């Protein structure tokens, strides 16, 4: 499998606090990788480092074999960090126009007046409206979505993965992750542990409960 994104021994400190202590993993083409970890473990930092938005103190991030900053200029990627990253004073139509999306309804409301779930869905639909992406990175994408929207998202992720796009997704929603991901990266105390879906599978089916049990094992080891 060709690797589209790789992180190698990434270290990041904020002041004296070490958030990541040698995180390493990779995402291949047509592979979905889930990042799991407790609150404050550094999942968002890890994803933003992977997207070149935060510079690591040590280690390297490569996108399609190039340093991430250079890779971003050549490799089409999409990153969505949640509805709070949508500019609140922007109008829906203006946001869609930026991504050459056709706004059939001519929605002219400001994003700030939409519900949290609607904003989340708008951001996600924008991501999945863009064709030709080689990597999609999503931070807590199921947050605020109703069951129908959550099902749509899982199906959209599987379809993109099966079409050859690499997917990196962080979430606390283990059941949804289990339905999409081929591999998991457990992040605890700044250290990543990569686990394949097969190794956490019970009775031939990867489930959220199995993931939770696997995560407990990793946390126990870290203690």
């Amino acid at each position, binding site marked *: 499998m060709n690797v589209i994104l790789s992180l190698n021994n990434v270290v990041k400190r904020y002041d004296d606090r070490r958030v990541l202590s040698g995180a390493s993993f990779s995402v291949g083409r047509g592979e979905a990788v889930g990042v799991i970890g407790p609150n404050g473990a550094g999942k968002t*930092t890890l994803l*933003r480092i992977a997207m070149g*938005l935060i*510079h690591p103190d040590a280690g390297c991030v490569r996108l399609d074999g190039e340093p991430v900053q250079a890779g971003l200029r050549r490799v089409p990627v999409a990153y*969505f960090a949640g509805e709070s990253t949508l500019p609140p004073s922007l109008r829906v139509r203006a946001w869609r126009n930026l*991504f050459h999306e056709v706004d059939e309804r001519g929605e002219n409301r400001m994003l700030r007046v939409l519900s949290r779930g609607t904003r989340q869905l708008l951001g996600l639909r924008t991501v999945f409206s863009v064709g030709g992406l080689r990597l999609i990175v999503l931070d807590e994408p199921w947050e605020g979505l109703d069951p129908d929207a959550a099902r749509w998202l899982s199906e959209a992720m599987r379809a993109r993965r099966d079409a050859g796009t690499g997917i990196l997704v962080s979430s606390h929603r283990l059941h949804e992750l289990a339905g999409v991901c081929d591999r998991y990266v457990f992040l605890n105390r700044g250290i990543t542990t990569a686990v394949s879906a097969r190794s956490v599978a019970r009775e031939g089916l990867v489930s959220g409960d199995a993931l939770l049990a696997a995560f407990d094992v990793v946390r126990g080891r870290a203690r």
Partner: protein
Amino acid sequence: MIRVSTLRFVLTVSPAPGWMLIGFAGSVLLGVATLCFNPREVDSAFGSILLLQMFAVSDGFSIPASRGYFDPLLTGEHSRQQMAIGTLAAAALPGVFAWVLLVLIAAAFGQWRIVVAPHRHIALVIVSVLAWAGGLALPRMSAGALWAFFLVSAALFRGALAKYATVVQSAPTDALHLLQSALAFVICPFLLLGDPPASTRPIVVGTDLILLLAVIWCAVRYVERRDYALMDPL
């Protein structure tokens, strides 16, 4: 994933406030009125555009970027250098448009001394670059407010200011005088509107342009090297 230009993205996501655009329009109208009734005082209209531009270009890039509003751009195909220059262009655009409009109107009124005097236009460049660069890490309009506060405070101490401002009232005779004149224009670009002798010397405005290029380089490096960790939304 985004394929639009940096300029269009920034103008869409972080546009100038409406009252600012009204202010620029008012400055142009003031300029037209001045040209009709007292053409010699048209510099006051240019001064009001400069004052508004101080606030307009200090658009506080880092804070919206840390809220994730610029994520599609920061993870897109544009380099950080292009992005930095794009934000400068987007922030400066309304003021530059008002300025060019007033210059064209002045030309139509036969005020060619305004159109052909490069130092006036350099005043706009100085304000645009310095307020933008100074505002990168600050909340929106803070750099403009701090700069205006400094100038007003300096004006209150007229004795010291008058002594320093005299450096631009004669053509520079040595390197120190040249540097002092260039710095005086950078600190207070409004001095360039009054046609002081130092402003007509190419070496003085050339020194200012070199200083501005250095400021742009530092600002671009800042945009390149900064971490864009997510902060809490509003």
